[in-house]
């Protein structure tokens, strides 16, 4: 019924994107599992993992779009939520290794044995359970975002200041996770995963299942964001983006709305990170690097913020370009990425989605031109 209502509100971009995700979710596994490896249409395991990775990034970009494109909050630290979700998943996967580690210690992960630790730190307890780990994937980023947002929005930290302290947040977390004493594997992070829910992570079947799960999660996040942005709540969010003070004067609790969007967005980012880790096979503190978060912002900007399908498009395209550039012309990649930043901000303020929008005459304006709420 809800789906029916959603479909009624026709958003061609979102519908097309959902259809494409569905097709990919079916087509890629079929081409991977059923087409023989000799065939030109066969998709090898690494390529499927790569596409899965792009889709995880797409979820991260989508989560950013929810707060930036619809609520005007530019987070330069969203990679932190992504990485925290990833670490929660990584901890579960570490516990699944059991006694198959290099040191063969059933109680402790290898890196703890290496550090001469004798017992599991308290915060590692419970991660033997998949359900608990999945709960933490949502809970840890959600709580951090809630607390951070609660204080930040209540004291009306906004605009550039907010962007900078989100950057400080992820930078501080990066430094913290680099420390061996934190108990998260320090520099090397968590890796050498063996299996998930008892299935071997290297097996084609497991990889395919993970891939389909990623597609489903992306589709579900897209529907969730659609539901939020098309509800009355979403209208208020857009109002906050366009004129925060005016919305406040109309009687809305701006902080509460922002906090809601920020927390939901962090949870989506956490799920994206959790799906990312088993497909990539490693999570390390580098994921917290401020540069990663800023890059994610650029996927969103390139795709077109304020539309739900734009960021997905942007994330996939930019990462595809990155994969191609870094293997073919590694020294040119930073020029290309930097050029993209400039080109998009200068010439395509609505991103790629804006191009479609321009063609569809009479279509809704995706992003109103910049807000001159900038005297701050």
């Amino acid at each position: 019924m809800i789906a029916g209502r959603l479909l009624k509100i026709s958003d061609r971009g979102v519908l097309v994107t959902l259809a494409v995700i569905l097709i990919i979710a079916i087509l890629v596994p079929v081409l991977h599992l059923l087409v023989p490896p000799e065939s030109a249409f066969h998709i090898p395991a690494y390529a499927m993992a790569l596409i899965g990775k792009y889709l995880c990034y797409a979820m991260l970009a989508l989560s950013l779009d929810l707060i930036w494109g619809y609520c005007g909050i530019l987070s330069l630290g969203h990679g932190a939520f992504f990485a925290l979700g990833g670490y929660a998943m990584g901890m579960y996967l570490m516990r699944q290794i059991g006694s198959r580690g290099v040191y063969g210690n059933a109680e402790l992960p290898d890196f703890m044995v290496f550090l001469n630790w004798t017992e599991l730190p308290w915060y590692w307890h419970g991660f033997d359970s998949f359900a608990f780990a999945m709960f933490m994937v949502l809970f840890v980023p959600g709580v951090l975002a809630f607390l951070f947002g609660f204080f930040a929005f209540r004291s009306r930290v906004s605009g550039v200041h907010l962007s900078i302290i989100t950057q400080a947040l992820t930078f501080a977390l990066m430094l913290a996770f680099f420390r061996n004493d934190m108990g998260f594997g320090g520099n090397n992070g968590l890796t050498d995963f063996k299996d998930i829910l008892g299935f071997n992570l290297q097996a084609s079947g497991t990889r395919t299942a993970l891939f389909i799960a990623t597609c489903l999660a992306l589709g579900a996040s897209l529907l969730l964001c659609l539901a939020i942005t098309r509800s009355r709540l979403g209208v208020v969010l857009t109002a906050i983006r366009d004129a925060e003070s005016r919305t406040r004067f109309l009687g809305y609790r701006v902080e509460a709305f922002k906090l809601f969007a920020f927390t939901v967005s962090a949870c989506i980012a956490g799920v994206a990170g959790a799906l990312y880790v088993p497909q990539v096979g490693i999570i390390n503190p580098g994921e917290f690097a401020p540069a990663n978060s800023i890059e994610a912002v650029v996927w969103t900007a390139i795709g077109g913020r304020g539309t739900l399908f734009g960021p997905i498009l942007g994330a996939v395209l930019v990462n595809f370009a990155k994969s191609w550039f870094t293997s073919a012309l590694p020294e040119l990649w930073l020029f290309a990425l930097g050029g993209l930043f400039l080109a998009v901000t200068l010439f395509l303020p609505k991103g790629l989605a804006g191009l479609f929008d321009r063609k569809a005459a009479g279509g809704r304006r995706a992003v109103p031109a910049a807000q001159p709420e900038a005297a701050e």
Partner: protein
Amino acid sequence: MLLAVALATMLTIALMVTHAMAADLATEIKSLDTSNFAQKEKAIAAIAATGDARVAAVLTALNDNKLLIRKADRLVVIAEGKGNVKIENAATGEALGEAAEADLDRIAINNKIRRQIKVILGGLTLFSDDPAVRLKAADDLFRSRDLSSLQPLKDALAKEQDPQVRQAMMEALAALTLVSDAPEAEKLAAVLTVKARGDQDAIALLSSVAQGSDAVARAATEALTSLEWARSFWDSLQNAVYGLSLGSVLLLAAIGLAITFGVMGVINMAHGEMVMIGAYVTFLVQEVIRGAAPDLLDQSLFIAVPLAFLVTALIGIAIERSIIRFLYGRPLETLLATWGLSLILQQAIRSLFGPTNREVSTPSWMSGSLELGALTLTANRLAIIVFALLVFVGLLLLLRHSRFGLEMRAVTQNRQMASAMGIHTARVDALTFGLGSGIAGIAGVALSQIDNVSPNLGQSYIIDSFMVVVFGGVGNLWGTLVAALTLGIANKFLEPFAGAVLGKILVLVFIILFIQKRPRGLFALKGRAVEA
């Protein structure tokens, strides 16, 4: 042991008394040719008693098993090398050519003799003609606390004229007294002498004496406490200096950022790259000077500072004219665009100069260090503190007392009103951006002296600079100064007990919390302009 002490004492007295008797060194050396160790000891004592200039050489050779006897004529020689050895007459030092090892007999010694030799040699260095050698001997004695040297030390002290060496000997004597079985009163006095010395060795000695419960141990504990206090005082002072130096680096890196942010509301993510370019300008200037006029190398920084300012200011103005001015009123987009720019600049420098560190030399007047009490101030740190303050004062004067400064402040406070009053705001923006970038450039010259000049140089400072800016608030340079120094000092004071990384995390968390309390920083600009 006691026997050895007694013997050594005897020996040295003999050494002193018989100094003038000029016994024949050759004869005494000859008497080493015996298999009886007791006789050897006597012979060694007699050798020492001759007071001959070659005593040290002979005894050292004996200790090192290099004193041998030629089988043919039973002459005692000093041998050097292996296989075919070069030999010389032990008594005269006259070279005797080469000899096969098989033709030589070793003079065997035992541990007792080794101790005896050590004491004699120690005594000899205490009586050396060179004050530096005497000083070192006394200091060594303070550390080794070898009781067998007590008597020679006392004798040497009685003769000593040089006040510095005398002081060192008194301290060594006090150290020996503390480990000997001297009466309590003497030991208490010794504790005071050692305390007055107050360095790491003194602390080590006192803590070894402080065990126990007698009056001496109590006095030592007391002295130790006061020394520890003094040390922690100097440590804090040293930390404060380190913090000040880090703070002035932050000030240099952040102050340009604060200006552009204050005036234009623009966060320039490429600011770090301006710093990096400034450092590379320094490198290039030095390269050119090295080729053209090597004598000027010491003055290279004086050329690099204005040049770096000029280059980065021009780049800044170009950036403002070509990119930033199209993005006014969209601060978040500006942030992204400048980030993209920073990636391009980094990669450009990497392509031009390679990814590795470039070497920038430090002028001779900036190397070396200054000692103030227990405080070490390295000249380059000191120079950077002074330089940062100069830049700060210069900017302050520019903003207060120039037409441009006036216009800049007007635009900061109220852009529309300033424009209405006839201020050409676009020009002010371009010049402000140029100024901010130029200051980043001269910050780069300073940083090239203490950090690696690599394409990533700017990245390592950019987040800290942001922290300084949001902590200090914009629109007031004093805010930047206070914030930079506070953060620098806080970092360095947290380091000793939290570790460098955790200290940094604590500072970041503190700033994140602080922003909640004062969203616009320490020195926020007041007035209606800030509330949009």
